[in-house]
C-alpha cells in the first residue's frame, strides 16, 4: 500500500506539473485547501511574516531544507535530519504527512498523519500552489473559543506554571517529542491558553484533558502557558 500510494502521488504530481489535467488538479487543490484549514493551519502559517506559531511557517516548503526557518525552535530530531541533508522534496514531505512520528521519531509534530494517499496528494498540491503564488488567499482557521481580552492578557506566574506542569509531563514529554501524545512545548502563549480554555469549556473532546482543564483557574492556565512557552530557557 505505501509503495502504491507513492506511485499514485508521483503520477499525479507529474500530471499536475505539466498541467495536463487542470480540472482534477484544481479539485485536488481545493480539497487540500479545506484540509489545510481544518487540520494544519492551527499550527502552521503559509506566510513567512506570520507571527510565530506552534509549528514553523510553510512558505516555500517544497524543496526547502528541513529545520531551516531561522528562529524556530526545532526538535533535536528535526535539527539532526536537517544537518544530515533532509530536504522537503515531495516524496519526503508525503512520507512525513503520512506518519510524522514514524518518519522522524522524537519530532514535536503532534499529528497522527494522513493514511490516504489521495488526501495527502491534495494537501501537497495545495502547498505547492501556495508556494508558487504567495498572494493566493490563505484560509483562516476557525477560532475555537472566543476569550475576553483580559483573560488572554493575564500574565502567567512561570514558577507556579512549572509546578503545575508536573501534572502534564507525566504524559506530555518535556523534551517535546510527540508519539501518541501531542507535544505541548514552545507553543505561543495565546494558543496554549485558547486550547486549554476550549478543553475546559468542553469544546475540545478528550475526557482526560477535560478533567485536567476543569480544575484549572484562568491564572493556572496562564501560568502553564508561560512555562511551556519558555521551557527551553
Amino acid at each position, binding site marked *: 500500500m505505501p509503495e502504491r500510494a507513492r506511485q499514485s502521488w508521483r503520477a499525479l504530481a507529474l500530471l499536475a506539473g505539466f498541467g495536463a489535467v487542470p480540472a482534477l488538479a484544481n479539485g485536488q487543490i481545493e480539497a487540500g485547501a479545506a484540509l489545510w484549514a481544518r487540520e494544519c493551519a492551527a499550527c502552521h502559517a503559509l506566510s513567512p511574516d506570520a507571527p510565530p506559531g506552534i509549528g514553523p511557517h510553510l512558505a516555500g516548503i517544497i524543496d526547502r531544507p528541513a529545520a531551516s526557518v531561522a528562529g524556530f525552535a526545532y526538535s533535536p530530531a528535526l535539527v539532526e535530519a536537517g544537518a544530515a541533508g533532509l530536504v522537503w522534496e515531495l516524496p519526503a514531505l508525503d512520507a512525513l504527512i503520512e506518519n510524522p512520528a514514524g518518519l522522524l521519531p522524537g519530532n514535536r509534530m503532534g499529528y497522527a498523519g494522513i493514511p490516504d494517499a489521495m488526501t495527502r496528494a491534495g494537501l501537497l498540491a495545495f502547498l505547492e500552489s501556495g508556494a508558487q503564488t504567495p498572494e493566493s488567499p490563505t484560509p483562516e482557521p476557525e477560532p475555537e473559543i472566543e476569550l475576553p481580552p483580559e483573560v488572554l492578557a493575564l500574565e502567567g506566574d512561570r514558577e507556579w506554571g512549572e*509546578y503545575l506542569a*508536573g501534572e502534564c509531563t*507525566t504524559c506530555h514529554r518535556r*523534551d517535546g517529542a510527540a508519539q*501518541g501524545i501531542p507535544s505541548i512545548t514552545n507553543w505561543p502563549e495565546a494558543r496554549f491558553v485558547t486550547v486549554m480554555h476550549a478543553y475546559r469549556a468542553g469544546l475540545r473532546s478528550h475526557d482526560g484533558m477535560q*478533567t485536567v482543564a476543569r480544575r484549572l483557574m484562568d491564572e493556572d492556565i496562564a501560568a502553564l502557558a508561560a512555562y511551556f512557552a519558555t521551557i527551553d530557557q
Partner: protein
Amino acid sequence: MHLKRRSFLGTMAAGAAALSAPAVLGQTRPRVVVVGGGSGGATAARYIARDSQGAIDVTLVEPTRSYYTCYFSNLYLGGFWDLADLGHSYGRLAARHGINVVHDWAVAVDRDAQTVTLAGGAVLPYDRLVLSPGIDFVDDSVPGWSVAAQNRMPHAYKAGSQTELLKAQVENMREGGTYCMIAPPNPYRCPPGPYERISMVAHVLKERNPTAKILIVDPKENFSKQGLFEEGWARHYPGMIERIGPDFGAGNTSVDPEAMTVNIDGMVEEVDVCNVIPAQKAGRIAELTGLTNEAGWAPVVPADMRSRMDDKVFVLGDASAQGDMPKSGFSANSQAKVAANAIRHELTDSRLFPARYANTCWSLIATDDGVKVGASYEPTEEKIATVEGFISQTGEDAELRRATYEESIGWYNGIVEDMFS
C-alpha cells in the same frame, strides 16, 4: 568490634558519596535520602535534585541497576513490547542531576538518629527521608504458596525475571491446557493489571494454543474496568475465559505447587500454569521503620504525602495509605512531585504550592483495543479524595480504542522521561 567495623564502613561510604557531589567543603547541604527507585522514588529524587539546583544533597537507594516497570510488562507477555524497553537505568539521574545513586538494600531506619542503614553497612544521615518501596506479599494469603514456590507458580507482579518466566510458561503450555490466575484481594498494585494480563495471555493463547482455557479465581466481587474487560473478552476471546468469584468459594482457595493443583473451596482443579498474585502490603522497609498500620500500609497526610507517624518521613506510591488514588505508577509519580515541592520548601525555603494529584490507568485488551480510567484528586483532612473521573465506554469504535492505545504508549514514554531523564 563488629559494630565498630560496620560504622567505619558506613562513614567511608557516606564520605565517598559526598565527594561525588558538587559540595563545597565545610558547607553542609540539607540531605534527602530516597529509598526505592521506581515511579515514586525516581521522580522524587529527580525533582528534588533538579529543582534545588544543587542546594540539596540527594541520595537514591535502589538495589537493582536497571529498573523494570511493572506497567507495560503485561504487553511484553502479550508480545506487544520488548523486555529491553521495560528496563531503565539510573545513569542520567546521577550524571545530569548530581544524585548519589547507591545500589544497595535499605535494611533499617533509625528515626531518632535520622539515619538509614544499608545492607552493605553504610549509614546515611538524612534531614528528610522518602520511602517509596512498592509492595511486598502477605505471607500465607494463598495457603500453599510462598515466595519459595515462585518458580513453579510465578506472581510476575514485580517486573523482570518473574515476567520472563510467566511468559515462557504461557508460551510452552501444553495444547488445550489451563492457565489459572489467583487474583489478589483489594487493595493491591495496579487495579486493572490482573485483568489486562488475562487479556494478554488470551491473546497469546488464541494464536498459539486456541483450545487452551483461562481460569480466574478471584476473591473480589468486582474488579476495575470490569464491563470493558468482559465486553472485550467476549468479543476477542469467546469461550476461553472463566472467572470464579467469591460466590463460588474463590475466597477460600489454596494451591499445591508440587502437584500443580488449585483447591477452590474443596473443588480441586489441575492446572498447567498457575499465576498466583498474593495479597499485598507496603514494602518491608516501611514496616521495619514502624510507619505501617494494622492493614500493612503506611498512612500519610493527604496534603503532602508525609507519614502520619513521623513528619521527617514521606511515603509515596503503592506503600502509602492515602485514600482514593489507585496504587499505580502514575499515582506514585504524581504524589512524588507534591512531596518534592514540600521537601524543597522545608529545606531551602522555596515556594510551597498546594497539592495537585492525578492518575490515569490504560489497559490493552487486544491488538489496538486500548481502554483507560482516570481521575483528578485533591487532599482533604481525612484522605486524598476524588474530584472528578472518567472511563472508556463499552461499544466505543475501533478508531477511538486504537487512539487510546497509542496514547498509552505516549504516556509510557512520557512517564519514564519524567522519572529517568
